[in-house]
């Protein structure tokens, strides 16, 4: 086995996987930095959106592009509805309580999806088959992987522009920093929070639609990417967008290096080890300012 010769290939596959993790991590970060809630329902909301996309494509007979757009619209509605119907209604909300609500939403969504569609894995047919490959410099790149990287990169850049340059992005940051003052300044705080949930669900949904064709569509499909997305978000410092994107890429690459050179069976231990190490060395994450608790 050519150890070094395979390195570019491993790095490329890692980057393709990592770009999906980066999307999940970004979805996490968007909600966390607006409402300080960790959304554990993220993965399963994405899973359900993917099923909806699959349904529109196969049973509904829509063209691919419109079916995917429909899935994302559904994701946005699901995210906004979750915030509006459940999180906003919490009585005396604490961080723990809100996390538990997202866990409840996760169970509802998971239960509903696996009841409606069953546990059998299904294929999500795409115009880009994983079998079509292009070889550049000895690295085999499938069209699907290239599309994954391209779509993630585009989404992430658009998100950066939106959150850092638009008024809505500014409103989100203001809401996180001080909800009461943001409200006094005329920001519709609740609408911003609902928007953040919808936006995060759409980003997660894109991740789901990218995972679907690469593996299969099944109720458990997003658990693994969600865990790695979490790890990526923690690695990047929970509040930093760039950190989350970087974290996703790092987790994907490390995981693939580990899988190739050490053991495939224990690949999923890697993200956990990575966050443990990160938190032991620099708890604030790669790209976030250190958070000092005021007493």
């Amino acid at each position, binding site marked *: 086995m050519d150890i070094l010769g395979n390195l570019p290939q491993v790095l490329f596959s890692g980057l393709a996987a990592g770009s999906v993790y980066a999307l999940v991590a970004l979805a996490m970060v968007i909600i*966390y930095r607006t409402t*300080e809630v*960790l959304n*554990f329902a993220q993965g399963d909301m994405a899973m359900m959106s993917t099923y909806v996309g699959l349904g529109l494509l196969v049973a509904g007979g829509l063209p691919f592009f419109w079916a995917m757009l429909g899935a994302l619209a559904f994701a946005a509605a699901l995210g906004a509805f979750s915030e509006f119907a*459940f999180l906003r*209604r*919490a*009585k*005396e909300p*604490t*961080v*723990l*309580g*809100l*996390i*538990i*609500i997202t*866990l*409840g*939403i*996760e*169970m*509802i*969504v*998971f*239960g*509903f999806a*696996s*009841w*409606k*569609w*069953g*546990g*059998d894995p299904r294929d999500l047919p795409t115009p880009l088959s994983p079998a079509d490959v292009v070889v550049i410099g000895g690295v085999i790149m499938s069209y699907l992987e290239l599309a994954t990287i391209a779509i993630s990169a585009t989404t992430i850049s658009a998100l950066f522009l939106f959150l850092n340059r638009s008024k809505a992005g500014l409103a989100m940051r203001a809401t996180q920093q001080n909800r009461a003052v943001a409200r006094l300044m005329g920001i519709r705080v609740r609408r911003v929070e609902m928007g953040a949930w919808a936006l995060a669900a759409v980003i997660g949904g894109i991740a789901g639609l990218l995972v679907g064709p690469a593996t299969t569509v099944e*109720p458990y499909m997003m*658990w693994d990417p969600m*865990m790695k997305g*979490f*790890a990526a978000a*923690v690695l990047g410092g*929970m509040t930093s967008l760039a950190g989350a994107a970087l974290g996703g890429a790092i987790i994907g690459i490390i995981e693939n290096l580990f899988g190739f050179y050490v053991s495939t*069976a*224990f690949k*999923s*231990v890697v*993200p*956990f080890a990575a*966050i*443990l190490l990160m*938190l*032991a060395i620099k*708890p604030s994450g790669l790209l976030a300012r250190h958070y000092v608790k005021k*007493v």
Partner: protein
Amino acid sequence: MDMKRSYYRDLRLFDTWPLGLWLVVCAALLALVPFFAGNYLMYVLGYIAINAMVALGLNVLVGYTGQISLGHAGFFAIGAYATVLLAKAGVPIPLALVAAAFIAAAFGFLLGLPALRLEGPYLAVITLGFGLTVENIFAKAEFFGGATGPSVPPFSLSLWPGFSREQNLYWLIMLCAGGTILAIRNLMRTRVGRAFVAIRDSDVAAACAGVDLTWYKTLAFAVSAAFTGVAGGLFAFHLGQVDPTTFNLMLSILFLAMVVIGGVGSILGPLLGAVTISLLNLKLKGLKLADFEQIPLAGKEIAGFISRHFMETGMANIQFIVYGGILVLIMVFEPLGLYGLWIRAKRYWRTWPL
């Protein structure tokens, strides 16, 4: 109203003597069950008791110390595997259970170490990762029996002459569960228990008052893991098999749901939560289409709708919708859970007709 006005009242094992009497009666009734009940009732009660042990153990962490854990299925799995592997190696079962408690506690201690610098969300992610990692390692490593899990050795313990396997197992489970309740109740009346509560209410204030955060936070994890580990060991015998995929994320959330639904920070709460979730679990797992036809008025229509739009094979997953729904409702309407409802009812009647 429920204020304690003297230190000695706080130190009592039971608040009032009638309460103590009732508890003794309940314990005696539960102990007598094997003499007159069939295997199924013992199975159900054993299942509830195992879940109650986990819920009580988790409550030490979530309810009393104020730390979150989404990885208790991991400790549960560690306890189950440790017990089974030790028992297979010839260690007597009670000793294997004690060893499982210590092994789980050791892992709890290790997991507690990062908890020192972490709060809410970070801790949730770390414990979630722990649970998934443990499940993954058990399912993949050949040493632990791979995807099918190790075979469970015969349950050879005899507690009463002439008892069958089920009866002996039932007594052992009940002994452990009773021991857990007593141990946790006692723990919370000591210096250690008060330190836990102080950390929950304000870790900074606790540290200022001389509570060693490092020691007590890791200790809370270890104690919680120990009870969960014993419960895991009992669960392996109770089910008669160890399947690594049962110890998944959903199980961890279910354990947390028991504590939250029952009410955090009490003994009664997690017990109520464990009873509720266990009964729902047993009831909903075997749900069939025919059950929907029993619904009055529109049974046929509902069943028809369900068979047209939903998968027959996925019907067991209705339980997750129910648990999730209860979780959300509890957090929205009564964050103290069933225990909170109980307190409210008590207060209403005590101050009646005000």
